[in-house]
């Protein structure tokens, strides 16, 4: 790819470089993203600005195109992988500088459900958007969600199910939270192929998210609303 050599990231001005990083995220170019992050930091950008303006903004485009059926899972995984490269550099710097946290999510497929591709995608996209994600894996009984959400001081609980027979278990988790007086402490997002908005409402979730991109957008909106309330 000779034309790749034509772009020397360090010679671009900030604005051009950020746009190029959006493109490079879109194309899943991990090494280029890592280089771009290092250049911006060296130019005195705050880690938080690099995260939000270069990486999160770029992943927002990826998310929108995934939602709109322009990109599909392989491309999104590639983009998330590039994002991860950038995040590995930024993470310690973000902690050091006390940058605001996007929020923390505990996520897993519900008891009885072993289909985890959708859940993995949501976890990757949420991380891509700057959220901290604690992945509980597959087949989680209600105790796993409750215990992890409390331990991690999570803002969001995400539940995923692919089977029509396992999706009702989401209601068990929500009802248990209600019984223990913990329901209001967490935002609850649910997703999975057989679900729909009506189902989300019927079981008392905060939102049904049709795909990973919508999960990210919903989480961002809800966290913003929560911050405004305080």
């Amino acid at each position, binding site marked *: 790819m000779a034309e790749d050599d034509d772009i020397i990231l360090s010679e671009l001005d900030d604005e051009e470089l950020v*746009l190029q990083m959006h493109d490079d995220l879109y194309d899943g170019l991990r090494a280029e993203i890592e280089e771009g992050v290092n250049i911006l930091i060296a130019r005195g950008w705050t880690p938080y600005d690099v995260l939000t303006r270069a990486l999160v903004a770029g992943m927002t485009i990826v998310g929108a195109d995934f939602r709109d*059926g322009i990109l599909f899972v392989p491309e999104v995984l590639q983009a998330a992988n590039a994002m991860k490269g950038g995040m590995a550099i930024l993470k310690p710097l973000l902690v050091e500088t006390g940058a605001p946290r996007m929020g923390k999510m505990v996520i897993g497929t519900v008891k009885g459900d072993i289909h985890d591709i959708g859940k993995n995608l949501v976890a990757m996209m949420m991380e891509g958007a700057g959220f901290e994600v604690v992945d509980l894996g597959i087949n989680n009984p209600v105790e796993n969600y409750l215990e992890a959400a409390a331990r991690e001081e999570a803002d969001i609980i995400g539940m995923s199910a692919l089977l029509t027979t*396992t999706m009702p*278990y989401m209601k068990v988790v929500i009802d248990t939270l209600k019984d223990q007086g913990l329901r209001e402490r967490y935002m609850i997002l649910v997703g999975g192929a057989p679900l729909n908005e009506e*189902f989300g409402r019927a079981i008392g979730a905060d939102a049904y998210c049709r795909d990973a991109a919508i999960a990210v957008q919903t989480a961002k909106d809800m966290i913003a609303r929560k911050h405004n309330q305080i």
Partner: protein
Amino acid sequence: MTHALNRLLGARDWLLADGATGTNLFNMGLSAGEPPELWNANHPDRIATLYRGAVEAGSDLFLTNSFGANASRLKLHAAQGRVRELNRLAAEIGREVAEKAGREVAVCGSMGPTGEIFAPMGTLTHALAVEMFHEQAEGLKEGGADVLWVETISAIEEFAAAAEAAALAGMDWCGTMSFDTAGRTMMGVTSAQLAALVETLPNPPLAFGANCGVGAADLMRTILGFTASGTERPIIAKGNAGIPKYYDGHIHYDGTPALMGDYACLARDAGATIIGGCCGTMPEHLRAMRAALETRPRGPRPTLEDVSARLGGFSSASDGTGDEGPARERRGRRRG
């Protein structure tokens, strides 16, 4: 190779496949999280009842209860050492039901996805996928399956690996993908791409097509995509009985037997040869489909407008074939 499926395909211009496996088994008491394949050993009577339900409703073929019986899926239940046994049993029970049917019925050995993502993004390699599918295929062959039936695949690499496994087992096979994401598979494969792919395989499938996915309307659009490719190969249509709805703690698919009857005839008119259901499709749906296929005359190939008028709207504006799909304007600096 001569077996029930190619005899049936040679004799008839449409075949009725079966309906749901999971939905039916859950109605028989399978609990969530329990792998249905273990019932091949623990409750063979119930699996025979499942198969008989389809045969008695008029199915010309049925799929064995072996969808998740590959090493990668069974490992989640610490049963990866039982691949051969569970597949053999799935086919043996099927063989017995087919022999007693009193007419020709094909036993099709179901092979679902491994659930893994291929390298470099995931960990699955071609060799590993072939090995897993081959192990499963040998069990199904041993139990007397007529053909292998690869289903609900979303990645081209996985489809090709299953094809290679069929060749290693020396069996004919059929293969379907699940087109559930804006008209494409989760991995972005379009109907046109699958139609092209099957012709490039050294051992192409006897028939190929679509199963599961969104609703009957979306599935019909995919079938029309296959026909538009000009394929000469029999096309398989196995759509869900509508869309799942939640009522009072239970899930019901909203597709009525009457709607599935309409869908079966539309699928035939669109060019499908093997027509069946998927999730939510019960024996009463299959009966309605059989009756509709037997009594209603063939009609002209339906348009997309006909499909949405009869079966409901599509989940996305485009299915990714042709030039009308959405695209993003790129700055394209790295593209020269």
